[in-house]
C-alpha cells in the first residue's frame, strides 16, 4: 500500500516537473520574440510609420484602426492584413532578410490613400 502511495507521489511530482519544464521552455522561447509592436492606422497615416525589426526574430504587429477600414501591405516581406476598426488586427511573422521594405495601405480609404505609407527596416 505504502509503495503504491509512493508511486503515486512520484508520478505526481514527475507530472508537475514536466508541466513546469514545458512552461519554462515556452517562456524562454517567448523571450526570444520581440515584444508586440502596436501600430495605429487612421486617415491617412500609420503611427509609427517606421518600424525596425531584427532578422530572424519573430514579431507580432498589432494594428488598430482609429476610423475606417485600412490595410497593411508590405510586398518586400510578403505580409499583409486588413486593419478593421473595432478590433486588434494581429500579424505574426519572422523577417528572413535584412533591408528596408516600404509598406502601404492597400484598402482604398479616401483622398490621402496614396500617401498612407511607411517602411520596415530589418537589421542583421
Amino acid at each position: 500500500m505504502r509503495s503504491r502511495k509512493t508511486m503515486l507521489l512520484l508520478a505526481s511530482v514527475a507530472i508537475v516537473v514536466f508541466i513546469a519544464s514545458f512552461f519554462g521552455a515556452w517562456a524562454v522561447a517567448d523571450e526570444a520574440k520581440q515584444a508586440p509592436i502596436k501600430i495605429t492606422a487612421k486617415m491617412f497615416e500609420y503611427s509609427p510609420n517606421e518600424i525596425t525589426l531584427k532578422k530572424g526574430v519573430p514579431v507580432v504587429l498589432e494594428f488598430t484602426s482609429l476610423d475606417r477600414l485600412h490595410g497593411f501591405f508590405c510586398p518586400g516581406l510578403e505580409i499583409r492584413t486588413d486593419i478593421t476598426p473595432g478590433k486588434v488586427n494581429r500579424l505574426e511573422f519572422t523577417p528572413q532578410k535584412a533591408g528596408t521594405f516600404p509598406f502601404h495601405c492597400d484598402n482604398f480609404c479616401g483622398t490621402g490613400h496614396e500617401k498612407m505609407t511607411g517602411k520596415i527596416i530589418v537589421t542583421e
Partner: protein
Amino acid sequence: MNNGMQRRDFLKMAGVGGVVFASRLGFWADAAMGELDDFFFVQLSDSHWGFNNPGVNPDSAVTLKKAIASVNSLDHQPDFVMFTGDLTHVTDDDAERRKRMKEVKEIIGELKAKDIKFMPGEHDAGLDEGKVFKEFFGEMHYAFDHKGIHFVVLDNVSDARSILGNAQLEWLADDLKKLDKNAPIIVFTHRPLFDLYPEWDWFTRDGGKAIEVLMQHTKVAVFYGHIHQENQHMTGHITHRSAQGSMYPLPAPGSVPVKAPVPWDPAKPYKGLGFRSVEAKAKEHAYNVTEFTITGEVVK
C-alpha cells in the same frame, strides 16, 4: 510589359474614317471574315472629375469636355461608349461626391452616342460601396450582348479590399455557363484582374479566380482602366489591355519609387491622355484598337 502583341497594321477603319494606326489582336485573325456584325465602341476612362492640381493638369475643368467633343467629331458615331471607371475623383465628403457625379453625368450627356455604359472605379465607389454611384449610373456589374459578342462588366472596386467577392464570381461563372466555349467575350473592369504591379495596388486580390473562370473560354479580351496608360498583357490566351486616362497620366509600373501623377508638360499639353476606339469583328474575333489624343488626333 510586352506580351508580344505589337502595333503592326495600318488599317483603314470603317466607321472611324481615315487611315489610322491600329493594333490588331492577331491571334484571332485567321478565322472567317465577317462584315455584317462589324461595329466599334469607344472606351473612355479615368476622367477623375473634381481633380484639381494645376501642376498636373491646369486644364482639368475642360479636359473631359474636350474628350467628349473629340468623340462627337468622329466621322461616325460608336455603337456605344464605355466608361471604365473613376469618372469622379475621390472626396471624403458625400455631398461633394454627389455633386461631382451630377456634373460629370451632365458633361457625358453631351455625347452624340446615346448608348453609354458605366462602371465604377475605386474613386467613385470605394468609400461608400457604390451607393452614390448606383444612384446616378445604375448597376456596377452586369452583362449584355451586342452584335455577336458577349460583354461582361465586373466591379472590382466597390469593396475597398480590391476584390470581386464570391457572390460576383459565382454570378460570373453562372453568366458564362450558358455560352459556347468559343463565343467571343469582352470583359470590362476598372482594375487589372492580374497582378500587374501589386506594390502600386495595380491588381485585383481575387482576380485570379475570375481569370480561372474566363480561361474556360477560348476567345476572351479584357479592357480596363485604373493605370492611366496603355498596357498589354497576356494570361494564357486572354489578352488584357488598359486605357489612357482622361485627366492625368501615371508613370509606367515600377518606373519610379513613388507612384504619383506625371507633371504637366507645357510643351506637350495633354500628353498621355486620350481615349480609344475598338472596332470589333465578331465573326473574325478580331479587334482593331485605335488610340486617340484628348483632342482627337490618332496616336501614332
